[in-house]
């Protein structure tokens, strides 16, 4: 009985000692962590100070006057003029200079130019010109036109809007693409956009010039 009592006391002592030890170890651990955090904070502080120093150095080297000097000596950028600003999205859409024909957004036909070129040089066409390597453009355009027409047919029957069309040769008039409603279907839209691209790259005058030059070259070669 007494032995158990003694043992109990020792056990208590052990439990208390263990508890105290654990508590101490925990606090020790906490202190270590805290020290690590503090070391990290000090490091952050040092890095921030360094950052600040470098940032200030950068600012000092890239100050306004220096930038101005570089601009006046090397880059020569000037402030954009009023004409270079666009007031709204509508102006941005009109930026490429191609005007849509009312609701219908189809580029002027590019084939016109070739026809004009032939009309303008009838004497060159007369003495059976040597086979000029055909430009792929007309074929491409015809293909586009067929797509356009197909798209127009597929779309809801478009109301026949009166279009102001300049007088042009009947042969070419046949190839005139039908008016297509904007956003009729994605194919038509894509085709219209392609045609627009063509119009931008090869507008009437460019093609006419090309045609004239080709005809003139073939003429000289024949002579």
């Amino acid at each position, binding site marked *: 009985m007494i032995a158990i009592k003694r043992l109990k006391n020792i056990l208590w002592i052990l439990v208390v000692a263990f508890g105290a030890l654990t508590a101490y170890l925990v606090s020790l651990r906490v202190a270590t962590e805290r020290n690590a955090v503090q070391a990290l904070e000090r490091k952050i502080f040092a890095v921030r100070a360094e950052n600040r120093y470098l940032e200030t150095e950068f600012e000092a080297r890239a100050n306004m*006057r220096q930038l101005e000097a570089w601009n006046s000596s090397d880059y020569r950028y000037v402030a954009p003029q009023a004409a270079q600003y666009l007031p709204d999205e509508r102006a941005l859409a009109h930026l490429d200079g191609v005007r849509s024909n009312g609701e219908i957004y189809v580029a002027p036909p590019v084939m016109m130019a070739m026809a004009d070129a032939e009309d303008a040089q009838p004497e060159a066409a007369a003495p059976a010109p040597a086979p000029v390597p055909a430009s792929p453009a007309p074929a491409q355009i015809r293909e586009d036109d067929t797509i356009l027409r197909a798209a127009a047919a597929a779309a809801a029957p478009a109301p026949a809007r009166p279009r102001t069309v300049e007088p042009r040769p009947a042969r070419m008039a046949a190839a005139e693409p039908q008016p297509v409603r904007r956003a009729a279907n994605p194919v038509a839209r894509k085709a219209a956009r392609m045609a627009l691209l063509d119009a931008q790259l090869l507008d009437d005058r460019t093609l006419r010039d090309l045609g004239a030059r080709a005809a003139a070259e073939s003429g000289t070669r024949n002579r």
Partner: protein
Amino acid sequence: MATVIARPAGASKPVERYDLIGVAHGRLVVLLLLFAAMTAVLAGKMLWMGISHGSGNGGIAAGGMAPPRADILDRNGEPLARTIDAYSIAVRPDRLIGDPQDLADRLHDIFPDTSAGDFYRLLKPGNGRKWAYLRRRALPEQVAQVNALGEVGIEFPREKERLYPQRTLAAHALGFTSVDGRGDMGVERAFDARLTDPAQRGNPLVLSLDARVQGVMESELYQGLTAQQARGAAGLVMDANTGEVIAMASLPVFDPNKLDNRTQDARRNDIVQSTYELGSTFKPLAIAAAMDAGVVTSMSKRYDATAPLAVGGFHIHDDHPMGRWINVPETLIHSSNIVTARIADELGSARLMAAYRLLGFDRRSEIELRERANTQWPRAWGRLTNMTVAYGHGIAVSPLHLACAYAALVNGGLYRPATMLKLREDQIPAGRRVFSAATSARMRQLLRLIVLDGTGRSADAPGYRVGGKTGSAEKAVGGGYAHHSLVTTFAAAFPMDNPRYVIVVMMDEPKGNAETHGLRTAAWNAAPVVRRVIERAAPMLGVFPEANRDVDVSELTPLLAGGKIED
């Protein structure tokens, strides 16, 4: 039988033995207690360290971030003034190993702006100094170069230094700090308490200045200054609706990082520290006052400008005599002194004085800067003074006064004090009414008309709807006027359909050049600077040019065309 004789003295022995054990016990207990106490103290100390150590120190680490003096930022967060740990180079002459003369020569190679003799004087062992600065502020490369000399007597202490990364940019507005760290000029002086307050110095002070606009203003002013060989120039951009100063430039400039006595004169901030008779730029203010008072009832009302106006032995002339009767828009467009004087005479001195008082022309500007000059308010406001003051002679104010007045003139008639601080929406002052809204609207048209058809044509930045007024006044020197030294001013606002910014450019004694045909009036020097500043700075301020938009001045243009019809 043997007799055992025992000593009788044994009676005290057990007591003594008992005592010995007791003493030993007691000593052991004391020792144990001592050990326990020591352990307890150690454990307690450890626990206390573990618990309370961090909380105290974290605050120091966090507080360590706060610089001894708050940073100054512009409205977009660009640092304009900072306190950094800069390198300095110091010497202990008694610890030097090398030959001082040789060392001085090599230091002179690294720092060409200090002579070898000056270095030698500092390095010489017998000069009585134990420690001296070779350089208060040095670049890291220079420190590396000096370090490479391998001299143990030279030290590189890191010190807190006030640095202005933009150098001369906005130097007059920012000011500088003295060696002991007190603000001595500009914002540094005006906000010294705020910048050094321990509670607030962690937060940077955000100014209303825009470093980009300031840079544009300074570079364009400098170009105008050199082209015109002017003595000085000053420029100001102000938010017309809040009173925030966006750019404040005064030429010549100084570098607050490198102060010396040679820059003493350049430290004057002409925008707030100098007052000028600003001439014709006052005419719109006087005419607006007359419109508010009901003296100018109609824009088409004509006034006699056929001959110089004689008042009390003094003749008021026009620079470009019209020789006919002209109406109000023509008065402003041709900048007629005679008609402005006539209108002021009709208005009367009491009402003009009241209007000028409302515009704050009788006292220092309200801006926070401490170097504000007092205006030169006429001592006796007689009939003649009243007339000359209407066209800006006989009264001298700072360009900042003029900018505030123009802001009130165009923004709908509300005067707001100028400020160097960036204002939040809720901090914008309500302002006091100086002009009626209708007068302000009419003045916007008239100012736009001056730029479209009048003396301000060279300030017309296309698409920005600039409106403004030129002013060329002779400098008052020793009681009279110096006929060949002008102060030319252009005060403008843009965009005129909804004014957002007021801009004032002033040139001090421009000489004119071949490009301006030798002409020295504001239309030839101050106005083109305004145009270039607006073209470059307005997009930065969010004002974009619109080619097909303008102020409707159609109701006023017929009045100009009808000028040929004589009464």
